[in-house]
């Protein structure tokens, strides 16, 4: 089959193919009523460009969906981490325990305080035991944050007890004026719980 076509149509076809190869799928060949085989090719190129646009839109939609899913998973992970990092446990009706584990920076301390105060209010807690046994590195803001937590608990009418204080932590507490805060310090969590139960008159022989 021989075909004689205007060179301008070939140039236009090549221009569109070059644009498409560069990622521009919005270009289209201008179709004219030429009753020849090249018109089939030109139509096919335009169809192909339509398809490329459809697939690009589909891919973009899928990418957006994946991003949304990733963001949701990240949020769920953060919420889980948050929950795991502030395991407030009701060890007795009205008695809450919060074992602090790991590094406590300002951001985490603020989140812990918010969660703990909410529980104190919700459970009308009379006592809160903060166990510092598992607290590792203390940043500059950690002890002030813990002291603010203690004061806030006091403002809600609950008594705060600190347990598991290491010698270096104790020195920091004194330096920061922690001695002025009305807080009872005991060696172990079990000591604190025994003390609270004794206060409540629930421990025999005390």
């Amino acid at each position: 089959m021989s075909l004689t076509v205007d060179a301008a149509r070939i140039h236009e076809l090549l221009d569109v193919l070059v644009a498409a190869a560069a990622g521009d799928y919005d270009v289209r060949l201008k179709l004219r009523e030429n009753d020849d085989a090249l018109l089939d090719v030109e139509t096919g190129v335009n169809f192909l460009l339509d398809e490329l646009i459809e697939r690009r839109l589909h891919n973009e939609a899928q990418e957006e969906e994946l991003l949304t899913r990733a963001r949701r998973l990240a949020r769920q992970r953060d919420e889980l981490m948050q929950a795991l990092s502030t395991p407030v446990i009701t060890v007795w009706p009205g008695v809450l325990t919060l074992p602090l584990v790991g590094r406590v920076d300002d951001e985490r301390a603020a989140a812990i305080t918010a969660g703990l105060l909410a529980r104190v209010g919700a459970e009308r807690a009379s006592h809160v035991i903060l166990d510092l046994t598992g607290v590792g590195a203390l940043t500059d803001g950690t002890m002030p944050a813990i002291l603010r937590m203690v004061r806030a608990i006091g403002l809600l009418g609950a008594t705060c007890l600190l347990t598991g204080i290491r010698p270096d932590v104790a020195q920091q507490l004194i330096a920061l004026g922690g001695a002025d805060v009305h807080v009872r310090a005991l060696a172990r969590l079990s000591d604190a719980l025994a003390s609270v139960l004794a206060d409540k008159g629930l421990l025999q022989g005390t």
Partner: protein
Amino acid sequence: MPFFFEEAVTPQGKPLLRIHAREEVTLADAEALGARLDGPNKGWLVLSIVDRGTEYAPAARKYFPNLQHKYGALAAVVTSPIVRAAINMMTRLTGQAPNLRLFTTEDEALAWLDAMKI
């Protein structure tokens, strides 16, 4: 509406679904055609008069292969080379379009439909 439907008969008196197509055919239009072909008279002889300037949206093009088993024979009367090229391309994409032929005049199309053993 790009599709206008009319029930008619061929010169030999066979029932015929006559379609007049124009402007841009969307997926909704193509589905409407599918619903029409799904009616009680399955295996329609179809005569489609396709105006110059008729275009087919990409989604409609993809839907058309679903219609193949719904008609007995389809004769399209096309005078525009551009429209003919579009239908040719759709036919190629479909792979096979049995009992579909393009004509330039209505008389030729009707004669072909009448000759179909359906």
